[in-house]
Every structure is written in structure tokens, then in C-alpha cells.
């Protein structure tokens, strides 16, 4: 991952889009402070997080939560659902037994694992993939974090179960005003959930703007490529086998980015793109994507 700059407001869902290997996951881990080699600045609730001691970072992690992609891997196989959801509270020494139990069942109910008593004593392997991811979401909500980083939370789930998880996330955002970083490779999915979209390519942010702007008026070649691919795949278009072509997308991108490494600059209010031939004349001081 190279230079990535973005902000997330409370109650905002920022979509971070990019192909595998573009560094999306690294962004999430850097924000969490799990990658210690990050440089630059990560400010959370006005506080600089980089350079914090392990101890202070741990305290701060109460207010942040990371939801992982793979619900088969992110839940400890030897712990019961109750213990998994309770764990964060235990780690931070919050509440007594009774209050923790109440919080756990509240969180389980909130993510639709009802009745909670039926699920609390189960082990992850006794749950389906969708249910596991709900447990992971319940674990995220139980401490009421101010910022949730969701790393492809639905990509391992059946299509028919995805929207259920998305609904829960959206409802959580609406009721608690938590900010979300929603990491996905699926532009179409991001469109449904996100207020703004940031597109990553080759470890760099190449475009950032409100969802509708990015989707309707993509400026960076990679964003265009991505949109073309999504549209190309999107059903239900009239079906004529073999009769669909788009320009080979990668060539455009490589042409553009192989030689020059353009900076992210604002081309319209709130719409940033890293591309050289746009927004001429080139300003002396390129506006960078907002810090933080």
C-alpha cells in the first residue's frame, strides 16, 4: 500500500473498492494499528493513532471494530457464541457477568439470531455461514464502536443472505451513528450501502467521491474499467451470446499509470481523482484528499 488518504464522518459509510491485491485489507489493518509499519497519519476522534503505544492503542480499540471477511476463520472454533460476543467486553473489563450477558443477548437479537438463548451456547461449527457472520457482526456491535471497519463482510456469503447482513449494518449505522469503512471488490454492492466511494488501484487511491458521482461519472480509467466489467456482467440485459465487448481495460490503466504517478486532486466538489489529463490547467499545488 502506498499513499492513501480519506476521511470518514460519524454515521457515514465509506466504500473502499479495489481488486484483490490492491491493498484494501492493509488499509483496514493500518487503521486498526495492526500494521505497525504504516507511516502518515491516522486520526480517530481527533487523536493521532500512529505512534501510540501498544497500551494506548489497545484502549482505543474499544471504539473501533474490524469485521473480517471469512466467518469460518474469524470465530474461535473452541468458543461458544456467547463467549465470542462477550470477549471484547471481557478484554476491556466492562460490566459484570449479568450485564454482559444482557448485552450479548441484546446484540444477538439485534443481528437476527433470535431467540438469542438458542444460539448463545452453540459453537461456530454448529452455525451456517450466514449465522456465523451475524455472530461476527454482533461481536462488532456489542461495544458500540464509533467506527466499524468491515472487510468484505459479505463476499463469502450466499447472495440470498448478503442483503440480510447489509441491512443489519445499515440499521446499526442509522441507530447508533457509527461510521463505517466498507471494504469490497463489488462496486454494485457498494452502491447500495455507501455514501461515498473510494477506489483503490495498485495500492493507491485513484478516485474518491460520492457514490452517485463515482458510479455515474467515473473519471479514473480504472474506475471506468471496473464499472464496465460490472455492467458487462450485470444481468438481466438482453442476452446475445458472444455479443458483448468492451475495450481491454487494463491497457488503458497501464498506459496511464505506468509512467506517471498522478496525485489525487479535486476535480469537482468532493470528487477526487488521480489522473493527469483531467482538470487542466494543472494547479500549482494539487489539492490532496483530505488528511486523517
Amino acid at each position: 500500500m502506498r499513499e492513501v488518504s480519506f476521511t470518514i464522518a460519524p454515521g457515514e459509510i465509506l466504500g473502499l473498492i479495489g481488486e484483490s491485491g490492491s491493498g484494501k485489507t492493509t488499509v483496514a489493518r493500518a487503521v486498526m494499528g495492526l500494521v505497525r509499519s504504516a507511516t502518515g497519519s491516522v486520526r480517530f476522534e481527533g487523536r493521532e493513532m500512529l505512534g501510540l503505544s501498544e497500551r494506548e492503542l489497545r484502549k482505543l480499540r474499544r471504539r473501533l471494530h474490524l469485521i473480517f471477511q471469512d466467518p469460518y476463520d474469524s470465530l474461535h472454533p473452541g468458543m461458544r457464541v456467547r463467549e465470542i460476543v462477550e470477549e471484547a467486553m471481557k478484554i476491556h473489563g466492562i460490566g459484570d457477568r449479568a450485564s454482559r450477558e444482557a448485552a450479548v443477548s441484546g446484540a444477538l437479537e439485534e443481528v437476527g439470531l433470535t431467540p438469542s438463548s438458542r444460539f448463545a451456547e452453540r459453537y461456530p461449527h454448529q452455525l451456517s455461514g450466514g449465522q456465523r457472520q451475524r455472530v461476527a457482526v454482533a461481536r462488532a456491535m456489542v461495544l458500540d464502536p464509533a467506527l466499524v471497519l468491515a472487510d468484505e463482510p459479505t463476499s463469502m456469503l450466499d447472495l440470498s443472505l448478503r442483503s440480510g447482513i447489509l441491512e443489519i449494518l445499515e440499521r446499526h449505522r442509522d441507530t447508533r451513528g457509527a461510521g463505517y469503512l466498507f471494504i469490497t471488490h463489488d462496486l454494485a454492492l457498494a452502491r447500495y450501502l455507501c455514501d461515498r466511494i473510494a477506489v483503490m488501484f495498485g495500492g493507491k487511491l485513484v478516485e474518491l467521491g460520492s457514490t452517485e458521482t463515482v458510479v455515474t461519472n467515473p473519471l479514473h480509467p480504472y474506475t471506468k474499467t471496473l464499472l464496465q466489467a460490472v455492467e458487462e456482467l450485470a444481468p438481466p440485459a438482453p442476452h446475445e451470446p458472444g455479443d458483448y465487448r468492451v475495450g481491454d481495460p487494463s491497457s488503458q490503466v497501464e498506459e496511464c499509470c505506468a509512467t506517471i504517478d498522478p496525485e489525487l486532486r479535486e476535480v469537482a466538489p468532493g470528487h477526487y481523482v488521480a489522473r493527469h489529463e483531467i482538470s487542466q490547467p494543472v494547479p500549482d499545488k494539487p489539492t490532496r484528499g483530505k488528511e486523517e
Partner: protein
Amino acid sequence: MSGTLLGRIGAATLILFVVAAVFAPVLAPYDPTLRTAQPFAAPSFAHLLGANDVGQDILSELIFASRLSLTVGIVTACLATVLGATVGVVSGYLRGPVDGVLMRGVDVILSLPFLPLMIVLAAFLGQNTTNLILVIGLLIWARPARLIRSQVLSVRESGHVQAARAMGATHGYVMIRHILPRITPLVAAQFVRTANVSIMLEASLAFLGLSDPFQKSWGAILFYANARSAFLADAWLWWVLPPGLCIAAVVVSFAFLGYALEERVDSRLRSILPASEPQKDNEAPTPVGGGTLR
């Protein structure tokens, strides 16, 4: 299936030996420290395995010796496993410089010539059982440490470990609550292995005369038998063979048990792995039958 059967056979044999060791005073027909027969007596109904050079009953000696052999084996294995697991978990989990230092230490120990070093150490520290346990223990923890570390390296990358870290868990918490439970089967298998190794090593050292002269183990019986030339006389049949068989039986049973445990570790890994892979849910299961079943 066969692994389970072998494991049962191993466990049963071991239990037999442990019972013999615990109830030695009841089971042994004589006090092995007393002279109860003619020196070099051949087996008779009174003395099933005859007597040694000072007229002590060999059967009683054998039963009492199992106490020392098993104690050394098990205590040493505990020591080595705890040490090995601690080093393995800390090293594999923390990585970085800590890992570097610990693993170089492991390398050094693994590259030392075992037996000569132990002979020197045992001779240097003095011949008593505690020293023997310490010496063996300090030399055999390295292999389990290395194995456990490699397992920890993969476990630490699993999502739940990352999740716990992201929730603000301390390293200690993660190691105890998240890493350790996942490697317990491996640790158990390693314990059995080290027990096995330490019984062999103790027997070797004792056979070389480097054990506590006041407490006889099976190896020590062999040492005395050798010293009195029993190997060359008819007496080998009742003086040399029985302790040798005891050592072999215990070692083989530990090996069986270890084999069964390792098989269980493997099958547990197999049952955990497909579940932790992306395939189970929406992406199709691996092209092995039964994937769609849960």
C-alpha cells in the same frame, strides 16, 4: 481405525506399568534392597527372575525400578513440554527479534551432540535424579518448541486471533485464550513423544553408570548386569532381558499413544481446515464428495 486401536494398546500397557510402579511395595515379592537369595541365583518359584550379584530379587528390583524410569520419563516430559510450548508459542506469536533469539537458541541445542553432552553434564553435575531430569529436560525441549512454533505461526494468522487483537486484547490474553487451545492436541502429542525420548535417554545414561547409585532404574539394572558380565552368562535371560523388555514395552506404548494422538491432531486439522476455507458457503466445496453436506 488402526491408529485408535494402537493408541488403546499403548494406553493399556502404560496403565499397567504405572499401576505396577504405584503399587510396587504391594506387588514386589521382596524388598529389592535386601539380600533375599543366593547371589546369581537362577530363577526359581521363590525368585521368578532369580537374583543379582548381591542376592537381591531381580523381579522386585524390576518393579521398583519402574518407579524411577517412569518418573524420570514423565517429569522430564512435563518440563520439556512446558518449556517447549512456552518458547514455541512466544516465539511463533511474537516473531521479530524475540523469535530470532529463541530460535537460534533452539538451533544451538538441536545441533549439540546429545549423548556425549549429556554424559559430560551428568558427570559434571553429579549423579542424582533431579540433575538427570534437568539435564535431559533442558536438552529435549527444543524439538517440540520448533514444531509448536510452526503451528503457532499458522494459527496466529487465523481470523479469530486477528479479531482478538483488533478488539484490544493483550498479547498474553491472545496467547492463552486463542493460541494455546488451538495447539493443545499438538502439545499433547509432543508430550508423549518427549516422554518416550526421555525414558530412552535415562536408560542410556543409567546404563553408562551415570544415574543415582542409590536409586535403580531399568537402565541401572542393565548397568549392573553388564558390570557383572551377565551379558555373557546364562543370566542374561533373566537379568538383562526383562529390564530391556520393560524399556522396549514402555517406549513402544508411548509411541503407539503418540501415533494415535497425532492421527487425531491430523484429523482435527482436516475437520477444521475445510471449515476455515472459503469454500463451504457460497463457493462450491472442494471437489471431494460430501462437500455439500454439513
